[in-house]
């Protein structure tokens, strides 16, 4: 029972961290252009499109 007192908050906290990260990504518009993200990896130059 004592172990639960630690483990439950840890488990929930980690899950919550994931949720916060997801919302952060959503707010930052990382899900706006999934097709573009899939293609961006194919840029063949080292420095990226914007120099």
């Amino acid at each position, binding site marked *: 029972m004592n172990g639960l007192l630690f483990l439950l908050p840890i488990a929930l906290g980690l899950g*919550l961290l994931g949720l916060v990260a*997801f919302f952060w990504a959503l707010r930052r518009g990382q*899900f706006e252009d999934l097709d*573009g993200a899939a*293609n*961006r*990896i*194919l*840029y063949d130059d080292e420095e990226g*499109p914007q120099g």
Partner: protein
Amino acid sequence: MNALSPIPAEAAPETTVLVVPGMHCAGCMAKVERALAAVPGVSSARVNLTAKQVRAEHAPQVEAADLIAALDAVGFASQPRSDELSKAPSAVKPLLAPLGVAAFACMNVMLLSVSVWSGAEGSTRSLFHWISALIGIPAIAYSGTPFFKSALAVLKRARTNMDVPISIGIVLATTLSFYETLTGGHDAYFDGVLMLILFLLAGRTLDAMMRDRARAGVDALLNQAAPGASVVSPDGALQWVAAADLAPGMVMRIAAGERLAADGEIVGGSSAFDQSLLTGESAPVAATIGATVHAGTLNLDAPVDVRVTAAGPDTSLAEIARLMDAAEQPRSVYVRIADRASRLYAPAVHTLAALSFAGWMIAGAGIYQSTVIAIAVLIITCPCALGLAVPVAQVVASGALMREGVMVKDGSAIERLATIDRVLLDKTGSLTLGRPEPDPAVLDRLGGDAASVALGLASHSRHPHSRSIEAALLARGHRAVRVDGVAEAAGIGLSGLWNGRKVSLGRSDAADGMSTTLRIEGRDDLRIPMVDRLRPDAQAALARLKAMGLEVSLLSGDNAAAVAEVAREVGLFGQAAADPAAKRAAISALQAQGRKVLMVGDGLNDGPALAAADASIAPGSASDVGRQAADLVFLGDSLNALPRSVLAARRTMRVVKQNFALAIGYNVLAVPLAIAGYVNPMIAAAAMSGSSLVVVANSLRLVRATK
């Protein structure tokens, strides 16, 4: 970012969004972003490939026109995003946050539930139930909103859809679980409810992704009309006037290669016009002073002055857009298979739950126990797998088609395509390539130096014949020789000097069909017939369509002789000289006989027919209107895309039906348990995830749907 920018960083940045319809790959994205970033004053440029837009942050002194010019220099047409389009809502976006919340809550509650199932007792179980309630109830309230909203909306109109039983099930099961938690009871269904919401939201999101992809092409319709024209004012000055501001009486100067923005009458000059997008006619039409020309046609040869007779909503282009609007209405009545299933499903589920409640009451169980059993029935029958049955299959199938170069714009397109039994093909641009190609046999006979001279001349012109001769000769490995003093005479052709000899490439004197003549002083003239060839694999594709039990015929706007020639070549019957309204009428007539029609077309003139048909396919080379009106767009030249798409659609619907059978089969097994009162939260969770996994696995077989 752009470290070399001379503009001081503290200048307030402005944002311009440009629509770039031509972008479709990583190379295009990189080119567009680099071109914009290289403009002085632009601090960043980022492409959104899904929306075909690029957003540039720049100093205030940079104008949108500078950015458009920079993109034009690397070969991309673009225009500033208009305000109406900027609001286009994404169907996926509002679902993502609920999906994330449901996934988070489902995982955590499931973690606690497993402990309860494996035998937590007394205060531990009570603690776990309380934590589950604490996570579950807010999460259910938030992530369930898409279903609650939709259910309320249809209930207000006194109708029902799939979301009504889902919402009722969610609310009842949550209330019951909360009651159990309060009273320290044995079973709480928070995990089951969250899992249900998670799976259903996943299905919705997949469906919405397909719809979003479809919307990417929607802004294209008005791009087809030139966005404006250079207007000659009475004092001779030229002024750019936007298409919306053109008024009858104005005189437009149309350069060669420009599209008309309004209908009008030629008052100066003469030229040939490519009307193929508007009428389906393959040969360019010559027009001179006094002739009427239409918006959307392409001026091929020489600059002309055109007095506007009709603009904006009065043009023939706008008339076609209106015809299309009218034609699309019957299609919007189509009820998707998932909705048809839910119409049967919702009453059945509710009746079953009500019957088990009544049955247990009669059998003497208390209100509490009867309610628990009725809710267990609702949860068990809640259509987890049914919610996934259609979207997963359609997304997998459209992915398979996309790898074959066929883009599916809408999930319901696959359903409609699977039912067709009649195919109508447009000729120019659909069955044929839609561009005049030099006869390969004649090109083979060209001597090396003759070919080089032809190439040297052709490379000076943007006329479609020159371009296709150039491309064909280059493909054969010929290299251009230097031709001096090349001049292009509008409507005549190109001429110049090669090693002191007069050479020319241009219009043939013989009036037998389309051809171009290469003349070299001191040699025989050489006539190069220009033919609009059949698409590769056309014969094989048509044969496969027939083998699939489909009746195929031609429906063309071109003249009878041209249609008859092609029809003989491929062995089809055909209707010629059909204008947009006639094409639409032909389809309506077939539909009135109960036929399900697939229209294959590319032009503006096919727009209404594509919209009216039960399903429609356009080649990627089609006009924007054609691509927008069609359900499917195939890239590349091969006509094999047709039988492949039909085959994939039929296979998809077979899998969808299997999915329904599997999902309902699971219910048939689980429902008696629920009615008998043996279902606990663990069995409910297992049944739900089990049937969903089976449905997803079955749908994944469609990865090979086009093979």
